[in-house]
C-alpha cells in the first residue's frame, strides 16, 4: 500500500520533478497504482508467514487525499466537473470491486481475475512493445481490464465516461459478485 501511495504521488508530481508527466487524466493517473494493487493476490508472504493485505477501507483512506488532489488539479485544468466526477466514481467502483474480489477470491476465480485484470493487458502491451500488433481477441480482452481503462485515460485519453467503459465495469462486477471458489 505504501508503494502504491508513493507511486501515485510520484506520477501526479512527475511534471514538477522534471519527468515527463502523463498527458491524460490526473485521477486516472493516480488510480493506476491503486488498481494494480487491487489486482494483486490478497496474501503476501513475509518471513515465512502469510500477511493479509490492507482492506478496502484502509486502502481507500490512504488513496483519497491523493485522489482528491488529482481531482482538484483536473478541475483547475478546466475539465467539466461532471466528467471528472463520473470518471473518478467509475475508477473508485473498479477499485472497490477489485478489492472485494481479491478479499474473497480463491482458486479458479483468483486465477481468472489475475489473468483478465493484470496478465492480459500486460501481455498485450509487451507484444505491442515488440512492434507487432496483438491478436484482436486479445486486444478486446485487454479492453475489459480496469487497468487498461485507467492507462488509456492517463495517456491522453478522451474525457468523460463512454459506453466502452461498461466492459471493465461488467468484468469487475462479475468478479466481485462471483461465488467464492473452492480452495
Amino acid at each position, binding site marked *: 500500500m*505504501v508503494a502504491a501511495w508513493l507511486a501515485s504521488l510520484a506520477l501526479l508530481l512527475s511534471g514538477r520533478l522534471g519527468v515527463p508527466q502523463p498527458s491524460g487524466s490526473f485521477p486516472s493517473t493516480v488510480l493506476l497504482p491503486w488498481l494494480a494493487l487491487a489486482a494483486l493476490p490478497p496474501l503476501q508472504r513475509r518471513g515465512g508467514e502469510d500477511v493479509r493485505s*490492507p*482492506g478496502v477501507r484502509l486502502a481507500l*483512506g*490512504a488513496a483519497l487525499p491523493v485522489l*482528491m488532489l488529482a481531482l482538484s488539479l483536473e478541475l483547475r485544468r478546466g475539465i467539466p466537473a461532471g466528467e471528472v466526477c463520473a470518471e473518478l466514481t467509475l475508477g473508485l467502483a473498479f477499485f472497490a470491486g477489485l478489492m472485494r474480489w481479491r478479499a474473497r477470491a480463491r482458486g479458479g476465480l483468483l486465477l481468472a481475475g489475475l489473468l483478465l485484470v493484470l496478465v492480459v493487458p500486460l501481455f498485450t502491451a509487451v507484444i505491442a512493445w515488440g512492434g507487432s500488433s496483438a491478436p484482436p481477441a486479445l486486444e478486446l480482452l485487454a479492453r475489459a481490464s480496469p487497468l487498461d481503462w485507467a492507462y488509456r485515460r492517463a495517456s491522453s485519453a478522451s474525457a468523460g465516461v463512454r459506453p466502452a467503459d461498461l466492459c471493465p465495469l461488467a468484468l469487475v462486477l462479475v468478479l466481485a459478485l462471483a461465488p467464492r471458489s473452492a480452495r
Partner: protein
Amino acid sequence: MIAMLWAPLWAVLLAVGSGSIPRAEILLRGPTQGATLDCGRFGTTRVELDLARGEERRLIVPLAHRPLDDAPPEIAGGALFLGYREPSPRPARPVGTLLPPVGAEPPRADPLALVLVLVGALLVLACRRRPGWALAWGLCLGGAVALVQGRGGPAPPQSARLLEGELWEEDGGTLWELVEGAAGELACDPAGDLEIEVRPASAPIDFRGRFEGARAEPRWTVRSGIRGAALWRRAPLDVGSRRLAAEANLWGDLAAVWVRGEGGVWRARGSWPLGDPLPQAREGASPPGWLIAGLPMGRGALVARLDPAAWGGPPSPGTGATPARVWLRLVGFESKGER
C-alpha cells in the same frame, strides 16, 4: 493499450493536424432542440437550436472531416443533410506558418495541499489497525486537500494571438493573417476562418453552435476531446489603414520591438509608441525563439509584442474580447542601415 504505447511515435509523426474547415448544409425541422453530426473518430458537430413544430431553418455547419467519397456524417436529431459545400478558393497568405504557444501547461499542486496529503498518509498509517478511522481520516484530509487546491476555481483559459504580415516589395502592399490559439476550447467563426489546427493531430475536434433564438446567428466554439490539446484558428485580417514603417508607427503602441536586417541579425528596439519613428537599436533581450522561427532569410523582418491597449485585430468571436497576449510579425520590413 497498444496504441498508447505508440503514442510518442504518433506525437512525432503527427505533430499538428490542420486543414481548411469542411462545411455542409443541413435543414433543421421543428420540433427539435438541435442535432449532432458525427464524423466518427474525427469529431462531431453539435447544433443547439430550439425550433417549434412547423419551423425550419437551413444552416451551414462546420464539420470535423469530409470523406473522399462525400458520404454524409451520421446525424442524430431532427436534421436533414443537404450536402457538402464546396470550399471557397484559398486566398493568398503571408509566408509564415507559425502557431503561437498557448501555454497548455498542466496546473501545479499547491504546497499546502501536498503537506495535507502527507499528513493524511501518516494518519492512515497510524490507524492501520482501525480501518474505519483510517477511512474517516482519508475523507477529512481529502476534503481539506480539495478545498486548498480548489481555491480560485479553474485556471483562466490561456490564449494567444499572432498577427502575421508580409510586405510586398513590388507595390508596397501588405497581406495579413490572424492566428489565434487556445488550450482546450476556442471560439471560432466557421464562416470567416480559413483553417482550424489541433495539436496533437490525432485529437478529435468537436464544433458546437449555440443559437440564442430561432433566427439568431450561432456562436461557435471548437474543442478537443483530448485533455491538454491546443487549438488554433487562421483567418484573413483586414488592418485598415494601419501601417508599420521605419518613418512612423501608424499601428498602435508596441510594447517591445525587434528588427532583423538582411544580414540576419536581430536587434532590440525597445517600445515603439504610436506616431513615432522606429527607435534606434539598443541593448536588450533577444526576441522569443518561437516568434522568429521559420522566417525567410535575406529579407528584413520585424517582430513585436503589442501593448494591451493597441489594436490587436478584431475581437474573438464569441468572447468579444481580444486575447491578452498579442504578437506581431512583419516580413519585408526595412529600416535604413539595418544589416
